[in-house]
């Protein structure tokens, strides 16, 4: 039951925040912080209690037996890091929205509905339930972006939602097929959505051939897979900070998690057949995302495309279908969740609230005007580009090692090129934002020093950067939990 508290608390949080009076934003933010922290706390407890590779904390009950639908939740080493990152980003999202006043009650209602949905996806052990939570996570995004977002928010919100639903439509179709096609060892149709049962089941190989791309692409759209990634940058850019943190930090992980848990976990033969295509797309993601990031003038777009690029590593890790690569994929989900959220927080709130612009060519030697923030951003940028010592490096290392094992050298080479480009655009953009003299210096702006970071901002930065550094230096904290579960999963796949 413990793990379920995360989502119960989130939905209660949504309700409580939503029912508070709109003017009470000071109280609401504390309430929100309390609920978010509670969620993180529960995740941490789950983390502390978990060992071995099996599913823990199983809750199973009938829900809609006439359709073979049950209520089954639990978590294993694959979902655990994602629970943690969700909790972490949720807390930090509140911290970075500390100054939000407009419609605060509704904001947090949607915010927690989204978080509850995300927790739900990571905890669901029933395909139907997973899908329900997956969709629950989509709608609040629309409102978060459309109401509190920046320029072009209506368009971005709509695009994001339509892409998400496009993806889930594919998933739904695939899910129904899985339900009817899954057989037990004797060839009897199972007719269940229960993941634990489906994992043991056989699905005819011929069906897997077309089911895998259906489900994989459906989920991967949410994971930012090229060429269906375009919702991500526009959505991230238009979203308010907390929402873009959640989007980059956890929502994109929903897609990747679905790819791993459902597409690969249930359709091994399909995965084998399509792995090299997935890898190719993953490399395109990495390289293309980095190249486009290099060309952006809007700081948030840079980060948006860097997210696309980083999610390529997750996909690549999944495509390896071996222990090392999959561990890397899960680790990268955590890592990018933390680092992506941090970058969006910095760009969207910390820097923007001071400079009132995100256009790189309007920023003028920020290193002089906000040295502390600049250095924090530099550290975050380095973490993002996969500097050893940060979690990004470890996860990319795992992925690349896995890729050597099962994929062609060209794929690894392509990923290597992506890493180089990542270095390139990170440095160039850091230069443009913090070191470059502006072409037409604006006298009023150039002289003033900006106020330093506030306490909530500092706390949030410390949490996220600390997590990236901790996992970068002590990756075993997570890999010890991830690998046994993946090992079990791979064993099941081998049968």
């Amino acid at each position, binding site marked *: 039951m413990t793990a379920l508290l995360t989502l119960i608390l989130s939905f209660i949080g949504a309700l409580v925040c939503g029912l508070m009076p709109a003017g009470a934003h000071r109280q609401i933010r504390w309430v929100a912080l309390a609920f978010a922290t509670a969620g993180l706390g529960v995740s941490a407890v789950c983390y502390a209690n978990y060992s071995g590779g099996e599913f823990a904390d199983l809750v199973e009950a009938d829900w809609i037996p006439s359709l073979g639908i049950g209520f089954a939740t639990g978590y294993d080493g694959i979902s655990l890091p994602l629970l943690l990152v969700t909790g972490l980003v949720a807390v930090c999202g509140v911290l970075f929205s500390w100054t939000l006043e407009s419609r605060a009650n509704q904001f947090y209602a949607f915010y927690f509905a989204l978080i509850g949905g995300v927790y739900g996806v990571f905890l669901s052990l029933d395909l139907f339930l997973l899908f329900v939570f997956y969709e629950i996570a989509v709608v609040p995004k629309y409102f978060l972006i459309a109401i509190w977002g920046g320029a072009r928010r209506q368009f971005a919100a709509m695009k994001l939602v339509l892409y998400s639903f496009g993806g889930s439509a594919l998933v739904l179709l695939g899910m129904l097929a899985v339900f009817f096609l899954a057989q037990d060892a004797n060839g009897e149709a199972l007719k269940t959505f229960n993941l634990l049962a489906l994992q043991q089941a056989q699905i005819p190989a011929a069906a897997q051939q077309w089911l895998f791309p259906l489900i994989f692409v459906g989920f991967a759209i949410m994971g930012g897979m090229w060429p269906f990634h375009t919702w991500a940058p526009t959505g991230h850019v238009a979203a308010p900070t907390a929402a873009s943190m959640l989007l980059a930090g956890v929502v994109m992980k929903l897609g990747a998690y679905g790819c791993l848990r459902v597409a690969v976990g249930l359709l091994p033969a399909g995965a084998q057949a399509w792995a090299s295509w997935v890898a190719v797309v993953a490399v395109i993601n990495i390289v293309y995302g980095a190249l486009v990031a290099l060309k952006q003038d809007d700081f948030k777009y840079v980060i948006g495309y860097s997210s696309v690029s980083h999610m390529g590593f997750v996909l690549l890790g999944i495509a390896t279908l071996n*222990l*090392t690569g999959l*561990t890397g994929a899960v680790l990268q989900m955590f890592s990018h969740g933390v680092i992506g959220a941090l970058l969006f927080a910095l760009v969207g709130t910390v820097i923007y609230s001071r400079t009132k612009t995100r256009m790189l060519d309007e920023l003028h030697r920020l*290193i002089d005007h906000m*040295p502390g923030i600049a*250095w924090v951003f*530099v550290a975050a940028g*380095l973490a993002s580009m996969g*500097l*050893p*010592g940060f979690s990004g*490096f*470890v996860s990319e*290392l*795992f992925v*690349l*090692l896995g890729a*050597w*094992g099962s994929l062609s050298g060209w794929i*690894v*080479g392509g990923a*290597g090129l992506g*890493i*180089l480009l990542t*270095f*390139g655009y990170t*440095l*160039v953009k850091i*230069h443009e934002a913090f*070191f*470059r003299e502006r072409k037409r210096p604006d006298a009023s702006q150039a002289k003033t020093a900006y106020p330093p970071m506030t306490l909530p901002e500092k706390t949030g930065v410390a949490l996220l950067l600390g997590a990236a550094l901790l996992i970068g230096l002590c*990756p*075993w904290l997570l*890999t*010890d939990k991830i*690998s046994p579960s993946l090992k079990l999963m791979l064993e099941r796949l081998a049968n």
Partner: protein
Amino acid sequence: MITALTLAPVVAAVLMLALPEARARAVALVGALVSLALAVWMLVQFDITAAGLQFSEKVAWIPALGVDYFVGLDGTNALVLLLSALLAPLAVAASWQHTDRPRTYFALLSLLFTGLFGTFTALNFFHWFLYWELVLVPSFFLIKLFGKGGERHSAALNFVLFTVLGSVAMLIGFLFLHQQTGTFDFIKLAEKGVPVSPLIFCAILAGLWVKVPLAPLHIWQAPAYAAAPTPVAMLLTGVMSKMGVYGFLRIIVPIFPEQLKQHAGTLMAFALLTILWGAFVALRQTDLKRLLAFSSLNHVAYCVLGVGALGITADGLKVDAHALARQGVILQLFAHGLAAAGLFYLVGLLEERTGLRGRNDFGGLSAVTPRFAAVFFILTFCSLGLPFMAGFAAEFLIFSGTFAVAPGVTVAATLGLLATAVFLLTMLQRVFTGPVNEQNKSMPDLTRNEILILTPIIILVFWAGIYPATWLEFSQKLTQLIP
């Protein structure tokens, strides 16, 4: 022990963030001195008769990937560690008067120290690479933020991009190695002797190639050295350029003996090219810092020449050519590190006092500032390879080693020596003799602090030149061990 040495500067850097800005330099100095003290103590304790690693620490880190935290000291890295631990406090001292955002500056400098120490002591690719990349970050920002001239941005960017290009290639190479062997451990990899494709060998080579650097991947070097603030330039030329050569000794020689044998000729040819290129380009430089940069390029390439010699079979010779070459290379790292760092410091002082650093901007300085001139002469002669100075001993050993196996190349390389002599002497002549340039007439001589900084360098330069045995002892056992 080694861990403490490595992390002392980082701890200092963290402390700096907490303490007032004015204390930053003191904290940095303390951190660097702690490291130096530990380094000296270890070298004193170093058992020169024992083979293998000493002071090693090994802890499982990421068992899933077979990564251990593994550090240790042997003949290969003992001297470079000492060199870097020595130059660290000197660099801090050299920037004692630094006033522009001191906290940032000294924190970055301290991070750089950690990166350097770590690179020289790590024995597992995982954290070795961590440190290798860590070096980049502070040096990038030090050049970019505190460097001189408008070119510093592009210089810093080029520097990083070139190095990262190499690093990524190397990373991919090591991923392949790991794929084949399941380990990142340098020592284990050396024992296993993996057959690899030339492509992988080249990939790993590329990372070191850029770092050394060897022609034609050296073009980032001169702008970066010229743009860097003086203390950073000291470290760049004194220590960072040694990382590449050290990489050759630690990775290429033990892990890829076969490949080295195959490609030794090519490697030596490129080393020769770099030697000549560096020397002849230096002839035409009028900017003193750029001139020293090319001189550095030239000198470090001797080391690679020596490494190349290790790859050529030397049976039936009276002398142990490999031992000579190896010890020469290690000593050259030490000697050149000292001399080059010292020279950069002096040029930096010159620039600080007059605002000039052109070769032809000065004249007759020996009369105006005798002490300054004396030190400058000593270090230049050391660079030249004058007997009884460190440079001579080292280059002599290298040449004796290489001559035995590759006489032709060695002879050609001496051409480089000649050119070196020409440009260094021209420099001395233009700067220190002749009529005194009017505006430099009142240039103050070395202060006591500056002398204090230079003293250890001078002492070691002579010590290594007159009695190199003290230093060669460290690597003696090593050369007997590995074929």
